[in-house]
């Protein structure tokens, strides 16, 4: 039988395909640059804010990847994972567990709670295959009601709580819980190991260079990729070291290394799990439920596991988020979690059936740049800060709507194409 002819794709075509694929990302990139310019804020200030936002938001965004690969779309029900985390934090404060102990206790409580909620979410989503994205969104809203009931009535009235988390004379849990105090839970993770940005950059660069050399020598990485990675690391470091205006931007920004190490571990987890039996099942189920089923894979169970992992990770992500803020808005902190994380990963070029770590990181970065500067840019461009605020909400919902439409449009195109071939 003749060998298949592998045609080298036309360079122009490749660029065009890339543009089509990542159109949303490029639009956001352009908007970000424009808004940064028009915000009139010093870059140094923006940079340090973005670093903070990335450190507290990335983990949750990365928690979305596994369900996407398992074909369940964007798991907006991570909101429920966040709720579980808030229960954990509240209980930790209630029992006067402070500092790192408190944080770990909260994470410990979150694990079984979020896993159980994930099981319920997954069971429900298994009954509405094909509608998971919208289903999980509504489920998040629904769970909010149950959450309010739990915190307003059941805690305090039925399950007694200490005065650490309640207000004397009022019903339910206080609407703001403070993580500061002795010892402090505020930024307890971030403060474990915090270094100036330059130090972090040089350290990571050295690791990258050494790592790519090692991987190349072990024949696990191509020469091209190793050189590219090393060059990127060296050039970035040199820029910061030698160009004063660049150095000025990063000056004063500190990097919470421990938090980023956790984010890094999650990235590695997302990659490594796909190389296991379980990961192979996620991918198979994501691409074709019927084929997976025919080869003996328990489709529902696989999807359940994906959602459970995602919900637990999101819960931990919420703990990272709240320790960075220092206060827990008991009744609202979870509300926008699913929406913003979903929007962020879509901005990065992910779709309802494909997502990577890189897309999550890039999307999170662009989304938060816009978030940070949109108010000031709105004020300077339109003379009204409210327009910037409006723009924030507009982009979050807008990008999700675009993604949903694109998904339907693409799958229609695909089915048309396959129909014409026969």
């Amino acid at each position, binding site marked *: *039988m003749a060998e298949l002819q592998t045609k080298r794709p036309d360079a122009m075509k490749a660029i065009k395909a890339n543009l089509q694929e990542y159109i949303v990302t490029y639009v956001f990139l352009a908007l970000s640059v424009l808004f940064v310019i028009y915000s009139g804020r010093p870059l140094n200030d923006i940079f340090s804010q973005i670093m903070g936002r990335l450190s507290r938001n990335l983990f949750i965004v990365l928690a979305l990847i596994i369900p996407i690969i398992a074909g369940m779309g964007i798991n907006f029900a991570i909101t429920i994972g966040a709720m579980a985390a808030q229960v954990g934090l509240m209980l930790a404060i209630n029992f006067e567990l402070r500092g790192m102990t408190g944080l770990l206790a909260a994470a410990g409580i979150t694990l079984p709670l979020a896993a159980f909620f994930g099981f319920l979410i997954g069971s429900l989503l298994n009954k509405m295959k094909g509608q998971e994205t919208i289903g999980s969104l509504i489920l998040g809203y629904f769970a909010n009601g149950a959450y309010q009931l739990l915190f307003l009535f059941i805690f305090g009235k039925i399950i007694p709580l200490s005065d650490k988390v309640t207000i004397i004379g009022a019903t339910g849990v206080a609407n703001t819980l403070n993580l500061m105090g002795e010892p402090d839970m505020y930024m307890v993770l971030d403060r474990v190991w915090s270094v100036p940005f330059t130090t972090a950059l040089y350290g990571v660069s050295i690791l990258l260079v050494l790592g790519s050399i090692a991987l190349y020598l072990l024949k696990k990485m191509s020469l091209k990729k190793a050189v590219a990675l090393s060059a990127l690391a060296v050039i970035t470091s040199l820029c910061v070291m030698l160009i004063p205006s660049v150095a000025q931007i990063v000056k004063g920004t500190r990097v919470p290394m421990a938090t980023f190490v956790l984010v890094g571990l999650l990235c590695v987890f997302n990659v490594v799990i796909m190389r296991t039996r379980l990961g192979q099942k996620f991918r198979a189920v994501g*691409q074709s439920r019927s084929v997976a089923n025919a080869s003996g*894979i328990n489709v529902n169970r696989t999807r359940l596991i994906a959602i459970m992992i995602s919900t637990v990770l999101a819960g931990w992500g919420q703990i990272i988020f709240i320790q960075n803020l220092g206060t827990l808005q008991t009744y609202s902190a979870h509300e926008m979690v699913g929406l913003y994380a979903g929007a962020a990963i879509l901005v990065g070029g992910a779709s309802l059936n494909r997502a990577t770590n890189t897309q999550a990181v890039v999307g999170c970065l662009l989304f938060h740049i816009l978030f940070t500067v949109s108010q000031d840019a709105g004020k300077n461009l339109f003379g009204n800060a409210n327009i910037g605020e409006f723009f924030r909400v507009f982009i979050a919902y807008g990008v999700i709507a675009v993604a949903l439409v694109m998904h339907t449009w693409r799958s229609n195109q695909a089915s048309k194409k396959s129909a014409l071939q026969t």
Partner: protein
Amino acid sequence: MDYILEMNNIHKHYGESAVLRDVTLKVRPGEIHALLGENGAGKSTLMNILFGMPVIHATGGFKGEIRVAGQPVEIHSPQEAMKQGIGMVHQEFMLIPGFSITENIKLNREISHPNLVSRVLGHELESLDHTAMAKDARLSLDSVGVSIAEGTRVGGLPVGYMQFVEIAREIDKRGVRLLVFDEPTAVLTESEAEQLLKVMKSIADSGIAIIFITHRLNEVMAAADTVTVLRDGGLVGSRAIRETSLTEMAGMMIGRGDEGLNRVAQRQQPLSGKIALKVRDLVVDMPGESVRGLDLDVMEGEILGIGGLAGQGKVGLPNGVMGLYPARGSVTLFDEDLPLNAPRQALEAGLSMVSEDRRGVGLLLDESIEDNISFNAMQIKGSFFTGVGPLKIRSARQVREHAKKMIRDLDIRCTSPAQASGTLSGGNQQKVCIARALTMDPRFLFVSEPTRGIDIGAKALVLETLVKLNREYGLTIVMVSSELMELRSICDRIVIVAEGRVAGILQPDSPDTDFGLAMSGISTQEEQQR
């Protein structure tokens, strides 16, 4: 051990109706055993029993005995069939496009080795051994004669290659002794099909038995060692290929002769000889029933039957001409060009159709009989409206009278014209569909599978109605049906469609073998030349 598989005296009922009666199938190791039969002959039920599909056990199991390599076995699930060394190459590809060939071949049977995490959390988390998997995949690919790299993504492969990947996957399962190929050549090009037959032969030479389900008689002659023919759930017979012929097999497949044939009276006046509908090079993209370049002339005033096996495109023809599915080609109705992909224009031109999908496309089930009957005519022709000043409003009286007339003429059994059509029996629903088509005053009527799912008495009435419409009003009718007997009883001519094209135009009293050959895509002329 003479036989690798014996299925002895298999009986199977679905509710009241027997779908398999005393069927016996015996397969020797290393032979290619063709299983031949029309749709509904019982081939798939027999295979479902062999694979222990849930549908069999949910409907009360079966009677009879299965022996694998001489040992009686009970197979309750496809997994158990797999353990007995019985594999299936599906007609629709069970492949994941985004995976490489290796990943597909090894799907859910991955080779993995333990790591730190998996020792704690179980073997689900073992790492995959891609090198070992690729090696196994290479071996099975080589044994089906495919040289393509095992790391290639399946998504971009030509259809023919996918079939080979499927086969490689079955072979990769250790201990395979019997492979079932379910219409494997249906989606292949001619040269791919030839290659496939070669591969099947080499698999058989290695000692694996093959059950080859097909309706292409040529391929049976070319590849099989033995053939077993089923008809209407019964065993017609088994033959060694050396001792049989195309014509004998075709006869065995159709073989009802004139028995039970209830031919209607010949028409009094001869046909005018004018062409009512001329179809040239029609291509219809209807999933599962695509038409690929069909030419057809329909004479004015005749009843033309369209037959053929399921999935060959006979249903695609009326749906394409009516504009219900994307189509291209040229269609002329009474010497006027008919635009395609435009249902409204088709209706306006005087075409009307009774759809095979009675409950889906045909009827608004919650609406009353009278509304269903009048709906199209109101929308397209503006009938049943009365002018009140500048407004046109629906005239309930006209609708009711017309519905009553139709109910009388077609003998629709109902309590009143206001009864919801969903509550009628299948036969009466079908008559409502016909009534609606007639309300359009069509010049040309398509009737697609008019007797599907309705009982025998109602069938006869529906057919009578069609004949009456034809004889009394001179309506030209094209009737599509899977039931050859039905076509032979009322049609003037019968067109057999195979693989999206006309395979033969036959007379109702043509011999069974001609019908059998045409259905498997061999035109009668071709056969005579041999």
